[in-house]
């Protein structure tokens, strides 16, 4: 395939993915906004009003970046895992497998769809948060880079989950038992400075902590960890998972007999 043909193949997959999640927007966009609005009301306003400031910010201000990041992670991941698994389940993935579309274009097409959904939902949740608290941005570059890298990373992870999944239950196991615990324990609702040193050390093994804090730094200018380390961790995982996905596709794992 020529470069132009590859671009056509990529835009075809990307367009299909975006059309798919926009067509079912009540299932893909609205629930996260609703959920986060509830978090803002209950944790930010009702409970947050009884909590002291953290690093000089009220609780509502503190949790907004984490909740935006949580919705980005969840949506980027679930978009790719559900979409790619559906194509496997319906066997429509064969449309791609018989075509000369290179494996890396296939991956890029699907994860771009996941990133697009993550960014749209992240933006929608940010706008929702502005109903409760004025938006404050310390460093727009950090905000954009962190939200992009994080959604890319979790879209790739969702793709890997879809490759291995054999039944619908398999696409909910990782979000339920890995992703959600890591996200909730990734400093969305608290600063790890408040934890005992042992739990601080344990928390620092959680890569999501660096993403949440890096993103929060972009908004508030405060972080529990080195924000540049977060970039390095994100890029490292992105490269590792992308290469793994390429290998799995080339070997036909979960796709070819």
């Amino acid at each position, binding site marked *: 395939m020529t470069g132009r043909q590859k671009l056509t193949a990529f835009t075809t997959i990307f367009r299909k993915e975006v059309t*798919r999640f926009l067509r079912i927007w009540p299932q893909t966009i609205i629930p996260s906004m609703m959920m986060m609005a509830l978090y803002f009301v209950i944790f930010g306003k009702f409970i947050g009003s009884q909590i002291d400031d953290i690093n000089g910010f009220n609780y509502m201000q503190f949790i907004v970046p984490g909740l935006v990041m949580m919705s980005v992670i969840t949506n980027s991941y679930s978009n790719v895992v559900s979409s790619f698994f559906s194509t496997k389940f319906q066997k*429509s993935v064969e*449309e*791609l497998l018989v075509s000369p579309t290179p494996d890396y274009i296939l991956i890029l097409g699907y994860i771009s769809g996941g990133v697009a959904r993550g960014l749209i939902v992240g933006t929608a949740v940010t706008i929702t948060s502005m109903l409760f608290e004025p938006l404050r941005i310390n460093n727009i570059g950090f905000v954009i880079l962190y939200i992009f890298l994080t959604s890319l990373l979790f879209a790739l992870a969702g793709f890997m989950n879809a490759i291995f999944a054999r039944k619908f239950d398999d696409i909910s196991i990782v979000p339920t038992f890995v992703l959600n615990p890591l996200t909730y324990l990734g400093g969305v609702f608290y600063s790890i400075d408040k934890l005992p040193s042992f739990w601080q050390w344990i928390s620092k093994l959680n890569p999501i902590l660096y993403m949440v804090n890096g993103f929060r730094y972009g908004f508030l200018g405060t972080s529990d960890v080195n924000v540049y380390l977060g970039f390095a961790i994100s890029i490292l995982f992105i490269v590792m998972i992308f290469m793994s996905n390429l290998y799995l596709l080339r070997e036909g794992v979960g796709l070819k007999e």
Partner: protein
Amino acid sequence: MQALSISGLKKTYKNNTSALQGIDLTVNEGDFFALLGPNGAGKSTAIGIISCLVNKTGGSVKIFEHDIDTENDKTKTFVGLVPQEFNFSVFERVLDIVINQAGYYGIPRDIALERAEYYLTRLDLWHKRSEPSRALSGGMKRKLMIARALIHRPKLLILDEPTAGVDVETRRQMWDFMTELNEGGTTIILTTHYLEEAEKLCKNVAIINKGKIIENTSIKKLLAKFEKEVFIFFVSGMAGSIKPLSSYNIEKLDDMSLKVELSKGQNISEIVDHLRHEGIIVETMKNRSNKLEELFINLVNRQ
């Protein structure tokens, strides 16, 4: 030129099922080739390997002299596949399914639209273009898969039971379309359980059973091997039993019809004369058996 050249092709699945035991097969450019065999014989596995949906265990496959292992991208552009099972998204619109497939081959959207209109119109699906694929009937779904497989104008079209479960009219429409494609230069490999379909459309045939090719010849040569035919005679003037005719097997079905078995070298006019002598007039007759079907059963059972 050979459209397809398979050499020593083997496939053993993880559960140790040996689906293909080293088959050799060639299909020439422009051929209309039938690949026949009972269920589980290895046809779909072979097709899966040719179209890169199944990993082979051994052997080689060349498509228009390009190896699928070393020139995978190139060989994929030559092949159009109509699989046995429906394999499109039930939520997507008919037109989107065809246009997207073109996109996966790098065909720009404007060209894809033109081609989609041509093939969907030709297959009588254009008026359904905006409907989700799940709303189509079984026959329409089969035609949609044909349109999708043709969108990149493949030189080799593989049809895996394309007319399974479609009504007679649609089947004949599809036969005409396949013949037209073949006459236009597209090499076609057809698998089917309707053996009259293979007999009507195909020039050459291979029969596969238990992962081995047990026959590979032209349809004409295969049919020439046929040793026995069964005719039904519709008669008048028949009352009571019929006097037997030596070496001929004649069986009375009812007062109006007879079943007559005719072996190679036997003359049908001898039977007609014999019946006339008995005062029975043969009004019409028809060949009851499908020759290819009987040959197929004989070959497969013999193995």
